[in-house]
């Protein structure tokens, strides 16, 4: 690929430009999804963790993130952050999308949007109680030493890629759009941070009602819309495989919403709007690694299973006593693992599916256990690496600047204490004005 002359494909390029904008919109969508689930006193802080990640990760990605994840000088685990520092020297024939005829800078932006949302996803497990400064420091370090190496290992030609160690010894792991890189990664990091930072005051005793469910529904809708760019864009081109990924992204998500609602109806007696929004996200997460590698039946099965499994998994935090506030673990870690493992059962190279060289069909499609084994190894590596390194980063921040706000700030509300703002005008909150300019 690298030695061939670059030939621009304007159709593919137009689609990847569009897909990048779609995926970027997912992060503000996530801000609404998360923001609606917290209480009025911390909605702005919750949304700002997503917006803060957009700012910081976007800059780091251009400076050294892309180079370390997708540069050509890497080993099996990480690339060279200085090879294309600031994108200097990155030519179109050297980019990740060269074979699709998509210019290198488009590849950089598309991948930047993935890095941004992965960091933002983590914030759901530490709602209402995290110092914003600590979050920003964490985001920069985590991106650099957790996200970048995992992206390199899976997509940048490393250990778990179709040419890496796992492919040579078991079968080529399939992670089309980020089941391991994005969702298992963010979910394991969310679990690690929730354990380090501790439970919110009153967790499991006082009700912490979502303050704005229409925001949550709006966020889920924006996520779904953007996710078409996330999954179908991961083909790097406008073709039949992109169409397959697009269709699977729709139908698996529809099914997951239905099964989540059915699970709730049976368990709690009500089919809730929060359940519909959650089921949508669970389905999107689970189909992400599998979007290109399944036929329609496989996609429906993956969505249906993910809806039930994630609806049950969100109860774990009350059993084990960790405060994963907005269910990053229950939805993203569990959903990511579910989708990644189910590839081992339902993968097929029929019906426009994309297949890396060296991948096998799933167990139910006559391929035996090989692919399931490769998927399990890929999931295990992502969980372990992300969890362990996140604990180390989190501990270092906890011991130096501190992760958590004071109890007083937490009770009175992080919006006012940290950002100097409140989201809503309430009785008694009329103000007088002074201009600082």
């Amino acid at each position: 690929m690298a030695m061939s002359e670059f030939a621009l494909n304007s159709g593919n390029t137009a689609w990847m430009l569009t897909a990048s904008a779609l995926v970027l919109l997912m992060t503000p969508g996530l801000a609404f999804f998360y923001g609606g689930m917290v209480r009025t006193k911390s909605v702005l802080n919750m949304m700002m963790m997503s917006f803060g990640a957009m700012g910081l990760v976007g800059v780091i990605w251009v400076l050294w993130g892309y180079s370390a994840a997708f540069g050509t000088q890497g080993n099996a685990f990480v690339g060279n952050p200085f090879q294309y520092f600031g994108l200097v020297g990155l030519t179109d024939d050297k980019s990740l999308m060269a074979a699709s005829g998509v210019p290198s800078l488009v590849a950089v932006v598309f991948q930047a949007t993935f890095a941004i949302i992965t960091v933002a996803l983590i914030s759901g497990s530490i709602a209402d109680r995290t110092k914003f400064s600590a979050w920003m420091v964490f985001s920069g370090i985590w991106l650099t030493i957790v996200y970048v190496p995992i992206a390199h290992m899976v997509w940048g030609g490393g250990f778990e890629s179709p040419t890496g160690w796992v492919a040579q010894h078991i079968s080529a792991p399939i992670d089309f759009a980020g089941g391991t890189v994005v969702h298992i990664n963010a979910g394991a990091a969310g679990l690690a941070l929730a354990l380090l930072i501790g439970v919110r005051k009153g967790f499991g005793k006082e009700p912490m009602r979502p303050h704005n469910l229409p925001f949550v529904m709006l966020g889920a809708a924006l996520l779904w819309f953007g996710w078409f760019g996330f999954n179908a864009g991961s083909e790097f081109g406008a073709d039949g495989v992109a169409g397959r990924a697009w269709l699977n992204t729709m139908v698996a998500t529809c099914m997951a919403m239905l099964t989540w609602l059915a699970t709730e109806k049976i368990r709690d007696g009500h089919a809730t709007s929060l359940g519909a929004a959650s089921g949508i996200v669970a389905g999107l997460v689970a189909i992400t690694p599998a979007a290109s590698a399944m036929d329609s039946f496989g996609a429906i099965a993956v969505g249906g299973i993910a809806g039930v499994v994630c609806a049950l998994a969100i109860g774990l935090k009350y059993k084990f006593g960790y405060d994963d506030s907005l269910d990053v673990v229950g939805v993203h870690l569990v959903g990511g693992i579910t989708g990644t493992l189910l590839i081992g059962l339902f993968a097929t190279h029929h019906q426009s599916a994309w297949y890396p060289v060296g991948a096998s069909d799933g167990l139910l499609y006559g391929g035996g256990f090989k692919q399931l084994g490769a998927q399990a190894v890929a999931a295990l590596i992502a969980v372990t690496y992300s969890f362990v390194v996140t604990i180390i980063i989190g501990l270092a921040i906890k011991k130096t600047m501190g992760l958590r706000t004071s109890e007083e700030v937490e009770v009175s509300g992080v919006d006012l204490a940290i950002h100097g703002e409140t989201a809503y005008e309430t009785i008694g909150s009329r103000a007088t004005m002074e201009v600082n300019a």
Partner: protein
Amino acid sequence: MKLVTGIIQPHRLDDVKVALEAAGVRGMTVSEASGYGRQRGHTEVYRGAEYTVDLVPKVRVEVLVADEDAAAVTQAIIGAAQTGKIGDGKVWTIPVEDVARVRTGEHGPEAL
């Protein structure tokens, strides 16, 4: 003079207003309230976690009346607000020492 206060189900307000007007009441104060009695609250479910909400929405109707009208006004509120289910509310009457009409400065029964 008396102050008759009724705490009623919000969906009964329109009927109570009609009944009060029919009983000759010419003004009232209505406000949103929340509380509970024997009805207690209700439960809500968010991602499988059940929350009990103690305070439920109610409407408070207040009417200032002459002493001899208090019983009829109380009966009008009861008649219009009653559904027979738990949660219908309460009506009570308390004596009022003085009433003044702000526009004219009148005091006592003329101000009603």
